[in-house]
């Protein structure tokens, strides 16, 4: 599990983010992905005897935003939570197949889920600030990782809140409760809290689904900023959001087993976002992205 420390300075010198490239279908997009962050092969995830997801094989690349789309019950969130082993917290959850993070098996024998989550952060669907002050919310991660230096913590808190585009709104009330913020602010606080530990990857589970359009735009703009430093994987129900923010899209669908009446999610198609939305190869993908299904 030992990995070289992330060099964020070097990462920011990468070529212009893909989001700045044109998105028109007639302009061919050069597909030159960065390093592979996640690599999954034939992943299947079970909750007890219930198979929630099957056949997930995909690669996620550095400094890109990868979107998972698909109808409810298609296993997007389950797969996302497998990337930082959050499913370990669900009794009976089990992952089959291979899942690699920067070449290391995520479910290997000596892998500590704590170390995994330290590198792979997560933002949840519902903003979940801790019942602590705004400052303590952001400083929480650095503190549990052993940072005690008051001066450094101040720096981290300010930098993280600035990155999350929340600093100007809260700089004069860092000591008020994190629960006093509006939904959009609270979600940005949660993003600030996540990036305060300088993770390598940020997983986002429908981060804007509970927010109004203005707050959603703020979060989306933020993601474009953040992807120069982090790799982002986002689950979304909102297809416009996927086209707006993501570089690659994975479309999940539901397989219904008529005998046992169980529904299992499956990865149908994965590719560059333009391709998925404009030239889908699978009829199910086409039906979904054109709004005829799901």
């Amino acid at each position, binding site marked *: 599990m030992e990995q070289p420390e992330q060099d964020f300075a070097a990462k920011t010198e990468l070529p212009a983010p893909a989001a700045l490239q044109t998105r028109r279908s007639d302009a061919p997009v050069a597909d030159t992905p960065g390093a592979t962050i996640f690599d999954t092969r034939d992943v299947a995830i079970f909750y007890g005897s219930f198979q929630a997801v099957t056949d997930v094989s995909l690669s996620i690349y550095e400094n890109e935003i990868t979107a998972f789309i698909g109808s409810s019950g298609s296993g997007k969130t389950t797969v996302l939570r497998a990337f930082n082993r959050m499913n370990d917290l669900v*009794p009976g959850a089990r992952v089959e197949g291979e899942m690699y993070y920067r070449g290391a098996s995520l479910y290997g024998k000596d892998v500590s889920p704590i170390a995994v989550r*330290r590198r792979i952060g997560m933002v949840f669907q519902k903003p*979940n600030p801790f019942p602590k002050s705004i400052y*303590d919310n952001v400083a929480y991660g650095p503190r*549990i990782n052993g940072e005690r230096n008051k001066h450094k913590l101040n720096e981290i808190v300010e930098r993280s809140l600035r990155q999350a585009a929340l600093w100007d709104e809260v700089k004069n009330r860092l000591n008020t409760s994190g629960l006093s913020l509006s939904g959009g602010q609270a979600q940005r606080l949660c993003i600030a809290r996540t990036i305060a530990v300088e993770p390598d990857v940020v997983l986002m589970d429908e981060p804007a689904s509970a927010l109004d359009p203005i707050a959603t735009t703020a979060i989306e703009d933020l993601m474009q900023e953040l992807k120069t430093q982090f790799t982002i994987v986002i689950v979304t129900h909102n297809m416009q959001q996927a086209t707006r923010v993501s570089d690659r899209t994975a479309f999940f669908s539901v397989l219904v087993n008529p005998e046992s009446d169980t529904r299992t999610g499956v990865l149908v198609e994965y590719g560059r976002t333009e391709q998925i939305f404009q030239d889908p190869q699978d009829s199910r993908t086409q039906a979904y992205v054109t709004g005829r299904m799901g």
Partner: protein
Amino acid sequence: MAAVTGDEQKADLREPPSWRRTKNRIATALMVLAFVLVIIPLGFVLFTVVAKGISIINWSFLTSPIPSIVAPANEGGIGPAVVGTLEITGLATVITVPLGILGAIYLNEYGGKNPLARAIGFFSDVMTGVPSIVMGLFIFSIWVLHFGFSGLAGAFALGCLMLPIVIRSTYEMLRLVPNALREGSYALGATKARVTVTVVLPAAIGGIVSGALLAVARALGETAPLLFTILGGLTTLNANVFSGANTALPLLIFTNATQPYPGAQDRGWGAALTLIVLAFILMIASRLVTARFSRYSR
């Protein structure tokens, strides 16, 4: 706003007279009645105790040794019983509250559905229903018979009463902490112990303190478990809570109130008021502490 034209009828937004409205009124009246019925005995108890006890209370009453049972009201006081109650209940709290909270943390955060946790939860609930005198007998037979009467034995007996209350109330409070908070902490790379100490406990602290306080208040007034463990009947202060017979306010109230002597009865009322005031002070102190702990939870 659109003006209402002359011939257009205004919307009638009043609740129409109906059985539904009647039911609503009946239910409201019943609730007010229930509230009054609850308040009356409570008020009477408080009023009687204050009225009969306030005249005897002064500093010397609270600190002087206990006089002979036949002594008039202006002689002696209840000092040893005040000290005994504070010591014994305090010791019981120090033993029980941490143990109970740790037990509840095990049940809710670690035990899950495993058989041991289920068994502990079940027996703890059974313990809630055990009569307090049985707890006293229990400690009498396993402790007092070997080591003699002591404040410590009394604290053990009170602790047996308090433990299930602390466990149950803490457990219910921990269950109320949203899982989203735990996940938020886990997602930052926190270990289970960290999640529990830095997120779950602070989020539940208000309720935990309230529950612990309920247990302390219950123990403050218990007489039966102390009869077999601290003996009572002491007239001078025994500051050593770990050995020798001791006394406490409930025992003093019991022995004095059952006497025909007016001085003893007055001392009984004074002790009763002292006990109520102690519980009241404790309540306020814990509210202040809790407010400080949970100032960010809203």
